[in-house]
């Protein structure tokens, strides 16, 4: 190849190299995640839970014309449907959804063989892990937000939206209630994203995405079990899942920040440690898939 040809071949490469940060790969990643039927079905399941809660409570209230405090709270303000749905889904459904995405992140590409082609483009291994984790985080937020929005809309439709009665008994306006609900969504999503970082690491250990997903779900359940054993109370603050239920503190008056802040720090710690572990693992790995 002559010098002229070499120059011609490199012209489209020169000006763009390292001059901009493009979101193109991330957008492609999100298209793959949200375009996949399996994931769409999973999101549909997540969205069905608040609908069932809302309809079931509505039907019960009609028949009995009253009920326990929990139901009374819902009937007083529809936003509680979203909170009830998040509470129910945070133990298994939401972690499962995130585990499916995170487990697939590297193991799925290795299993298909597409990992070797991404790396020879070249996509640097660090960049690959950064984009994958960003996509997992975005999925976590959108999945949690989906439950919140469906719950809030169903609740407001079926029960209306007056003032919100807090756990401490005082009342806040509907808009203040919505703000705290969104804060809860962000808080829980951060926890799920941290679980996603664990999944990303596990995903670098295997070429079987299902195995990675199952491992993450088992870890999640194991943390809940350990958290329920009072003999291990010294361990509880170090468990990622221990802090998830602290979102209740966001509905006190005034907001009791210490629990949620500790929860966010724990999530950030898990995310950092496991992302670095994934980086150390993938960085030195021979890609033979």
């Amino acid at each position, binding site marked *: *190849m*002559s010098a002229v*040809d*070499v120059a*011609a*071949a*490199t012209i*489209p*490469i020169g000006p*763009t*190299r*390292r001059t901009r940060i*493009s979101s*193109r*790969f991330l*957008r*492609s990643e999100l298209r*793959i995640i949200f*375009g*996949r*039927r399996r994931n769409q079905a999973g999101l549909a399941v997540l969205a069905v839970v608040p609908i069932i809660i809302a309809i079931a409570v509505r039907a019960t209230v009609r028949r009995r014309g009253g009920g326990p405090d929990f139901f009374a709270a819902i009937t007083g303000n529809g936003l509680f449907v979203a909170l009830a749905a998040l509470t129910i889904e945070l133990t298994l459904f939401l972690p499962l959804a995130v585990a499916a995405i995170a487990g697939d992140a590297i193991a799925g590409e290795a299993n*298909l*063989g*597409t990992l*070797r*082609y*991404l*790396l*020879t*483009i*070249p*996509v*640097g291994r660090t960049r690959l892990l950064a984009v994958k984790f960003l996509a997992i985080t975005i999925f976590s937020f959108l999945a949690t937000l989906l439950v919140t929005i469906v719950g809030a809309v169903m609740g407001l439709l079926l029960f209306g939206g007056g003032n919100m009665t807090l756990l401490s008994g005082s009342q806040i306006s509907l808009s203040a209630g919505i703000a705290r609900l969104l804060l809860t969504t962000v808080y829980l999503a951060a926890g799920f994203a941290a679980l996603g970082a664990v999944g990303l690491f596990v995903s670098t250990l295997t070429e079987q995405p299902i195995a990675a997903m199952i491992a993450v779900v088992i870890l999640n359940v194991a943390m809940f079990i350990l958290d329920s054993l009072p003999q291990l109370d010294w361990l509880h603050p170090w468990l990622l899942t221990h802090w998830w239920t602290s979102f209740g503190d966001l509905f006190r008056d005034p907001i009791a920040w210490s629990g949620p802040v500790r929860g966010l720090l724990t999530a950030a710690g898990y995310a950092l440690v496991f992302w670095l572990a994934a980086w150390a693992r993938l960085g*030195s790995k*021979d*890609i*033979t898939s």
Partner: protein
Amino acid sequence: MTDAAVATFSLTKRFKRQTAVDSIDLVVPRGSVYGFLGPNGSGKTTTIRMLLGLVQPTSGRSELLGNPIPARARQTLPLVGALVEGPAFHPYLSGRANLERLDAADRDVDPRTAHMRIHAALDRVGLLAAAGKRYRAYSLGMRQRLAIAASLLSPRELLILDEPTNGLDPQGTREVRHLITSLAGDGATVLVSSHLLAEVEQMCTHLGVMHVGKLVAQGTIEAVRSTTRRVAGVETDRPQDAARVLTGLGLTDVKVEGHRAFATLGAVPVEKIVPALVHDGVPVLGFTVQAPSLEDMFVSLTGEGFDVSG
């Protein structure tokens, strides 16, 4: 730094129990079409994976386009198109969507030209008509074509193609051969691994032969061929006398079959044989020098070679 498109220096890879690649010194000159031959399991693919930075060598080093790999992979790989161990794509995406995905991951290309480049790559491998079909519905041949298209998404100086005609029908095989020849004509260097000897013979200028992890021969096709034995044959009505003359000249493995005498040429100059025969009064009715076919050569270098290497 060397001027070769691909150069390795005592490149070695040991997996737990076996040495997959054993201290090889590959040299692929710029502008060549280099046929990388070897039986299954001889270490071709592991070598290619090391060249592309997918696998870390146990010892030794390699250079692509004069740049050390993996140290300068980031700068070098954009100029290298690769097909490694068969096609691999997302099954539920169309062929075109799969190429868009790969292009999106490439930071060195202009997104504004993506559509045009993808179209051109699909066109070049004859896959435009099936571009919208899901990958899972593709035949093996179509998958192989898509993988070749993926390696052509941007201008390349070097193409590393591992078994590019695997699974293609004869028509497709011919098209790929023409494609490789035309890419080489555009100035690209092509390293193509294969176990199909006829194919390599038709399109390659250079050859490297792997056998149980070792590079047992390398050079231009002619040079590699001449390292193996050539056979001189004399057709005559006095074959016994001819055989005696051949032996006297220093040829080895002298045999007589009917009206012919054969012997391995070795270092004896071809042009001396016929005069010597005539001088001794042996009537020469015909004289041939047979270079072995590439297949004979391959077998002589690698053993029978049907069984996979260790």
